[in-house]
């Protein structure tokens, strides 16, 4: 499937309120499945696919990839992106001023020869997501770690944007 997952999020307002409003627009918590467990057979899935029916999937349409959690920290922001199955080598993070871009590819490997795809729910293809930060980032200080499918990006504030304490001198 060559469909690229492409989504650009731009935030014009630089205030924290703006960040919240922006995120609320694109987000909504995933609806949890709390009552019944799904029980279905491979045979059923095959029949559904053969009949041209949509597989039963919990999916939010139009959600940006990757889903992000954003936290403010003492140094700036921490972003956590949910990207299971992604090879960290395939992800590129770039920071330019107050813009942070994530791009890469996910599950892009074609099925092996002789393999039939019976079901495909996981996102696949190329993605790009751009975020406007509420401050200019210190690009050299950005740190990213990847563990268990969660990408953690710490974005420190640029030194000239850090709040300074101004001493008041008594006359």
């Amino acid at each position, binding site marked *: 499937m060559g469909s690229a997952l492409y989504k650009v999020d731009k935030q014009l307002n630089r205030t924290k309120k703006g960040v919240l409003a922006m995120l609320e627009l694109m987000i909504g*918590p995933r609806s949890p*499945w709390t009552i019944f467990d799904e029980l279905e057979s491979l045979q059923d899935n095959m029949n559904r696919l053969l009949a041209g029916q949509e597989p039963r999937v919990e999916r939010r349409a139009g959600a940006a990839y990757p889903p992000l959690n954003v936290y403010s920290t003492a140094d700036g922001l921490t972003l956590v992106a949910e990207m299971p199955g992604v090879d960290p080598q395939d992800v590129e993070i770039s920071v330019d001023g107050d813009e942070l871009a994530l791009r890469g590819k996910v599950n892009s490997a074609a099925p092996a020869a*002789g393999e039939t*795809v019976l079901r495909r729910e996981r*996102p696949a293809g190329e993605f790009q997501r751009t975020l406007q930060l509420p401050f200019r980032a210190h690009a050299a200080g950005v740190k990213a770690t990847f563990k*268990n499918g969660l990408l953690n990006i710490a974005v420190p504030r640029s030194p000239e944007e850090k709040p300074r304490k101004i001493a008041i001198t008594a006359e």
Partner: protein
Amino acid sequence: MTTATEKRQDAPVPANEPVYIPRVDIREDAERFTVLADMPGADEKTAEATVHNRVLTIEGWCQTGGCPTPGEELGCEFRAGRYRRDFTLPETVDAERIQARIKNGTLTVTLPKREEVKARKIQVTT
């Protein structure tokens, strides 16, 4: 019951934690079925695959959705919680030889087919 991976840690799971249906890809070839399930945040200690009465259950637990250092949450598009999904296995699967592994938050369950149902090429002789 066949436990395909290590038993989950004994840490208690809060009852009110949300349970998500992990997204799966299912593939088949001559030898096996392969189930790939996205369980971000789960690792080999918190993910589990069990087979009981020809029902494969995959479970995982994401303990943290987030920030390693304490900070104010500005936006949230995913949360910690449990993952669970059940599949009824076709008769062709050899339940004794099911294997599971997890890497980068994706659980891969390999379900080999029974020897007798594998397609075999038969040499035609004159």
